[in-house]
Every structure is written in structure tokens, then in C-alpha cells.
């Protein structure tokens, strides 16, 4: 899981062109949106696209849990793992 979190941090830095930011600057359970890292709603769409491309997972945009999955790197890692397990079944 720690490896996946590090991978997601790199994905976030690369996707959002966060010049000069290191993976260690992103705290795994800190909020990604709003007052945390400062991502916005367009970034959420962009991140969804990047996740689909990299991990080949399905993102159900009607899910009421989606905001929670996207709230931090830690939750995002959990979401990616659960979707990958679903794909494997």
C-alpha cells in the first residue's frame, strides 16, 4: 500500500504539473482538495482520467462514496486496490 501511495503522489505531481513539489511534500491522509493541497473540481475530473488510464479501473461517477475516495492519497490507494480486486474477480 505504501508503494501505491508513493506512486499516486508521483501521478498527482505529474498530472497537475506541480513544479518543484516532491512526493514527500504530499501527506498521505491530508485533504487533496480545497484547503489541503488545493486541487479543484476540474482537477478531480483530470485525476479520474489519469487513474483510469494508469490502473484500468472503472470509476462510477454516481457513487455517493466518490468524494470520500478522492479526499486523500490514502483513501485513493484504498479505492484503487478495491477496484483492482473487483477487476480480478
Amino acid at each position: 500500500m505504501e508503494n501505491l501511495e508513493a506512486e499516486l503522489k508521483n501521478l498527482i505531481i505529474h498530472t497537475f504539473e506541480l513544479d518543484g513539489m516532491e512526493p514527500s511534500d504530499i501527506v498521505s491522509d491530508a485533504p487533496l482538495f480545497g484547503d489541503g493541497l488545493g486541487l479543484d473540481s476540474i482537477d478531480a475530473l483530470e485525476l479520474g482520467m489519469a487513474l483510469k488510464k494508469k490502473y484500468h479501473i472503472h470509476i462510477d461517477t454516481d457513487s455517493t462514496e466518490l468524494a470520500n475516495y478522492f479526499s486523500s492519497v490514502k483513501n485513493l490507494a484504498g479505492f484503487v486496490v478495491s477496484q483492482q480486486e473487483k477487476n480480478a474477480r
Partner: protein
Amino acid sequence: MGRETQLCFTLEHWCLWRSEATPSAGCWPAGEVLPCNGGAADVGFLPMMQRRRLSPLGRAASAVAWRCRQVGGDMPSVFFSRHGESQYYFEMLEGLAAGEEVSPSRFSLSVHNAIAGLCSFHGDSFQPYVSLAGGTEGLFAAFLEAAGLLLESPRTLVVCYEQPLPGAYRDYAASPRITWALGMVLAGGGTGPKLRLARVGGAVGDADADEPGLVQAIRQGRRSGCSRPGSSVWRWSLDDA
């Protein structure tokens, strides 16, 4: 609009950025050339979360707009570009043709008023911002709009910017060789050099092929000239106050 239109502005400040080194000696008075900065305009004045949104063209426009606002304060603004974010929308079209998904952020940033919108965020501005494209008057359309805004405001910012078109378009439309952005703080009255523009309609000529004649004249210190942006002729001059 009649066949002949005459405009007169006080040029309080101008600011030019070009993606190749440009000497500032011998330019028009009341302005400055920003450093080329290796071909990417310096936007270090912005926090990283705002900087990351800017394309090369957005950086250029934002840098000159920021500098002009430091001189003239917050004011109504006209943004002009003939083709805008042509690199972004061409890449998206290629992606769509290849069956790829469109990046939401690229899409939102490639609309024609995106750069104007970002610049208004940078300055926390609540002033009117207008974004203009193409048309038969070229960048002179921005001066017509500025003249209108000056009826309600003591000064107006005009920002014009262009970048080379993707190769696929170059057989069909004139493309500048380099990326450039020009900002001008214009006032209706007061002291300073007077920029006069007159439009004579009806004449047919060649569109400006490279950088507009007005931009060349500013950096070469040429004080008057004539441009044919499309189906009209614009005569312009800069006179000392």
C-alpha cells in the same frame, strides 16, 4: 460603425514579451520589454497552484498583463488573440481522432476566454474582462473595444498575444514565427504619448503575415504606420504629449 473610425488614447504604459531575445533600446517611450527568460515568460509572481495552469501562451499574456496592472492598477481589460490556444485544441482534436478521451483541464484552458479568466483570478479582479478573437480588424478590434470601455472607466488594459500555429494550419492561415504578448495601459485623457488610430474601410490587402506591424513598430521605435489586418486599413501614430 461608419467607414472611417478615429480613436485617440493616452498610452500610459506598454509591456512586450517575445519568445526570442529583444533589445529594449530604441523602443517606443512609456514602456518596457520583459526578459525572454529562455523562451518561457517568467511568472514567478504567481503561486505555484496558479502557475501550473498556464500554457506557454498563457504565461506570455499573464506576464505582460501583470506588469501593466502593477503600473496602472486594476482596470477593465480586453484580451485579443486571433487563434488563441491553437496548440492545445489541435492536440485535443488529434486525440479525439485517435479515440482518446479529452483532458478536462486542457479543454477548459483551451477555450478562448480562458487566459483572460486566469488573469482576472491572478489579480483578484472584479473588473469587466472581454476576450476577442480573429475578425477582419485583427488586433485593432481590441482598440475599438477599449475605446468603448473607456467611456465608463479612466483606463483600460489591452492584452494581445499570439503563438505559432500548429503546422497543419499553416497553409491556410498566417502564423507568427514566435510567441509574443503585448500589454497596453490606455487612458482616455491625461498626460503621456498619444496613440492615434484611424480605420479606413473597404480596402483589400494582405493580412499581417508574421508579428503585427504595430508590434514590430513598438520595438523598432517607428512612430507611425499602416496595417491591413483583413479587409480594412488601419493607420496609426504615436505623438508626444
